[in-house]
């Protein structure tokens, strides 16, 4: 697992995009610490791959306070805190994208937790193009807060462990 890049926002921003992603790894992993400016309690992360928000399907299990709900076919993923959440807290989570440079549809998983909730989400991007850019944005709020952080890691099959033959 190799760190490709980390971004920390010096001021609020509406989205963070990694472009020209190297096609030299097997999988990608994004680890994040985020908060949005939505006025209510909680927001979600939304994705675009290669600049597109089309072709995404997902199913997720979400827990808000004491309520657990199942949601399907959303274009929103990890839960993160927002302006109405516990102050000065950031939610942490990760997204794992398998075989991002292959010529098949792309499956990915996302989880996210913060003081008032959390989720785990299984998703599919029905597109056979290699993923060359990934955009993160808040699904409901306008911007991610200052000090939000996203790190992009590349994972190479068989590295850092035994290779199965």
């Amino acid at each position: 697992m190799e760190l490709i890049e980390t971004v920390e926002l010096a001021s609020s921003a509406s989205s963070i995009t990694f472009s020209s992603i190297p096609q030299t790894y097997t999988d990608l992993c994004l680890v994040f610490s985020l908060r949005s400016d939505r006025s209510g309690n909680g927001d979600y992360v939304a994705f675009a791959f290669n600049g597109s928000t089309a072709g995404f399907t997902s199913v997720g299990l979400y827990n808000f306070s004491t309520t657990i709900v199942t949601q399907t076919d959303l274009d929103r993923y990890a839960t993160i805190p927002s302006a109405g959440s516990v102050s000065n807290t950031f939610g942490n989570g990760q997204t794992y994208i398998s075989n991002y440079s292959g010529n098949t549809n792309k499956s990915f998983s996302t989880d996210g937790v913060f003081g008032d909730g959390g989720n785990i989400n299984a998703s599919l991007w029905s597109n056979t193009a290699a993923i060359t850019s990934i955009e993160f944005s808040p699904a409901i709020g306008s911007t991610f807060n200052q000090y939000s952080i996203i790190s992009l890691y590349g994972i190479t099959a068989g590295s850092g462990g035994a290779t199965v033959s």
Partner: protein
Amino acid sequence: MSNPTKVIVDLSKPKGERETIVELTAEEIAEREARAAEAEAQRLAEEQAEAEKQANKEAGIETLKSLGLTDEQIAALLG
């Protein structure tokens, strides 16, 4: 007042030169606002559906109680 910005990290460039901060265009702002409104409407619909489900559950429990079932019997039925 300036427009919101987006951060683009171009990984083809050397480290330290990758990050660019760009103001959103009016079209991008409109598109993002439409997406956010849709996401908020969907969230509200789910919240309402969950509240209705909970209200139906509580009404059902009251009906069972009025038929003479104990709290333990109702809990066993609900699993």
